[in-house]
């Protein structure tokens, strides 16, 4: 894979990302991987019964890239992966906007599914991002979910 693009791509950014370009980056000149799994997280209109108007994402810049790199390294220790791309947006995001992308390629689908879900589950509990929700009733910080903690611990 000497001429392949870098095997890991990790980015924390305000600007939006283009799924088609991410897919291209995962698959171009990569005929050894038969499986591609993508996750995209989007701002949805309803959270625990609250009508959401927008989200604001804060992070700890010095730590986020490092934390995400560690998660990708852990995933590579557990599964035989090809390329991994992970993008997390920060700043203010409107309804329906893209928040996070995780894309993984592998020779086999089992590894690609597992690694993609592992990365999302770990990111939810170990990467320093915080969401503030804007609703008609005002703004508030989203509470961490016990179910996310349990999921991350199950790996």
């Amino acid at each position, binding site marked *: 894979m000497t001429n392949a693009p870098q095997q890991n791509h990790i980015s924390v950014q305000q600007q939006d990302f283009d799924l088609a370009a991410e897919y291209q980056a995962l698959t171009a000149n990569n005929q050894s991987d038969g499986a591609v799994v993508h996750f995209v997280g989007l701002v949805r209109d309803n959270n625990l019964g609250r009508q959401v108007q927008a989200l604001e994402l804060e992070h700890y810049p010095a730590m986020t890239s490092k934390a995400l790199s560690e998660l990708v390294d852990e995933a590579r220790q557990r599964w035989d992966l090809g390329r991994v791309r992970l993008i997390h947006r920060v700043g203010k995001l409107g309804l329906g906007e893209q928040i996070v992308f995780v894309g993984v390629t592998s020779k086999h689908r089992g590894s690609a599914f597992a690694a993609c879900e592992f990365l999302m589950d770990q990111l939810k509990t170990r990467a320093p991002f915080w969401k503030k929700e804007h609703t008609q009733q005002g703004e508030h910080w989203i*509470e961490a979910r016990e179910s996310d903690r349990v999921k991350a611990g199950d790996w």
Partner: protein
Amino acid sequence: MIKVLFFAQLREVLGCANLELEANVRNIAELRAQLAQKGQSWQEFLASDKALVAVNQTLVNEDCALNSGDEVAFFPPVTGG
């Protein structure tokens, strides 16, 4: 000196994004205790069951040793993704 950062609702309830301290605490537990003296909300919101802590950008436990030059960050459980 130790640099201390606060994020998200912790930054808001404490009204403080960052501060610097003399490095006269040996570990995280001692740092929490020292910061708790700054007032009621510091005592309440920096409790170890409410605020996670990272030293030099890595999550750590209460017994993590501190040294001059370290960057310590307190923050609520994360909610990204």
